[in-house]
């Protein structure tokens, strides 16, 4: 009886452990180097985008690049840890609009296409980022 209980407890404990992480999106984005290229491409697109470039003036672009790459890596299931501020905190006082958010999405889409990221992988990443809009706009 006791051994049966023990076996059940062990089974439950095994179930409670994290399943192996799905890193297929991370790999489709080209892993660390691919994600860095996507982020750099997006920032270059933003630099040329009169709709939103003003929101990126007077900030440490290299730090932004690193934090964005970390964040995308985490969202894509990659082996990273996000060390930046919360979405609410990092957009505070900017009063970003839905249009600003969409402009950034377009710059990201262009950067992913330039890196030949397949459309389903692009959509998977956008689906991970879309719920963050509420934490980004109107702050």
């Amino acid at each position, binding site marked *: 009886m006791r051994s049966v209980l023990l076996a059940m407890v062990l089974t439950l404990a095994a179930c409670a452990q994290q399943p192996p992480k799905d890193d297929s999106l991370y790999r489709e984005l080209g892993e660390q180097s691919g994600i860095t290229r996507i982020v750099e491409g997006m920032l270059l697109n933003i630099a040329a985008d009169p709709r939103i470039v003003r929101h990126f003036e007077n900030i440490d672009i290299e730090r932004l690049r690193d934090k964005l790459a970390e964040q995308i890596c985490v969202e894509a299931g990659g082996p990273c840890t996000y060390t930046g501020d919360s979405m609410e905190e990092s957009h505070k006082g900017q009063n970003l609009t*839905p249009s600003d958010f969409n402009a950034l999405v377009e710059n990201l889409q262009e950067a992913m296409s330039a890196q030949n990221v397949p459309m389903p992988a692009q959509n998977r990443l956008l689906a991970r980022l879309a719920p963050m809009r509420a934490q980004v706009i109107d702050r």
Partner: protein
Amino acid sequence: MTYLPRCIVLLLGLLANLACADGRLLATGGASSIEGAAGGGITPWAVLSGYGERGEWGADVFATRVETGDYRLDVAGVGVAFDNRIELSYARQRFDLGNLARGLNLPENSLSQDIFGLKVRLFGDLIYDQLPQVSLGIQHKRQKDFLIPSLVGAQRSEDTEGYLTASRLILGGAFGYNLLLNGGIRYSRANELGLLGFGGDRRDRHSVLKEGSVAVLFNPRWALGVEYREKPDNLSFAGESDWADLFLGYFPNKNLAVVLAYARLGEIATLDHQDGVYLSVQGSF
């Protein structure tokens, strides 16, 4: 008769001077439906004309032709939206009776109507919020050539109908590709959109009619989908079929959309098997 086209020209001049923004993503303004509201081809969607987001204006003009062999429908119109909240639209439809007019020696060879539309986004968002985008619309229709409709039993030449529609873009929803879902109900007694008047000898009450569409976006510029629209059956002289189509939409940029479709329109005014080609070109501002 000529003041409405002049009105459109004036409106276009006005629009050209307005700074219409492009705050929404490509293709999220939809195309222009044959009744003028932003949507697919034969059904309106919950999205609003043009690409304006919060605090921005959006607008479109369009021309559409449906050719079934026996008949031809020409539509031209304009839609204006503000704040991604409210849309006003106008469409003029001209239905060429072609073979039917020649075969029956009808007194007129075409039927026309004006459609004035208002659509309001009630809540939700096409892509981002928890809830899908839901819009409520009304359309006031004025049939311009009422002699033939009155002879076949139509009760009135003018009527107002309403619709409630929901739209959602599911990112990656179709095997990794974006999936657009639309569903709506309409409260109408229009015969063949209103081209054959409103209400009939068989039934003179509004019906609750279902409509919907599903589309897959292969990338932000190309969409392939199907549409369905239930229609009432108010006139005893001929049956009225539900409509369906298969469409391919191309959105090369935020100023142009082209939709090519194969439409199955069934029986129209006694002539059956009205299948044909649908082509629509839309300019957005």
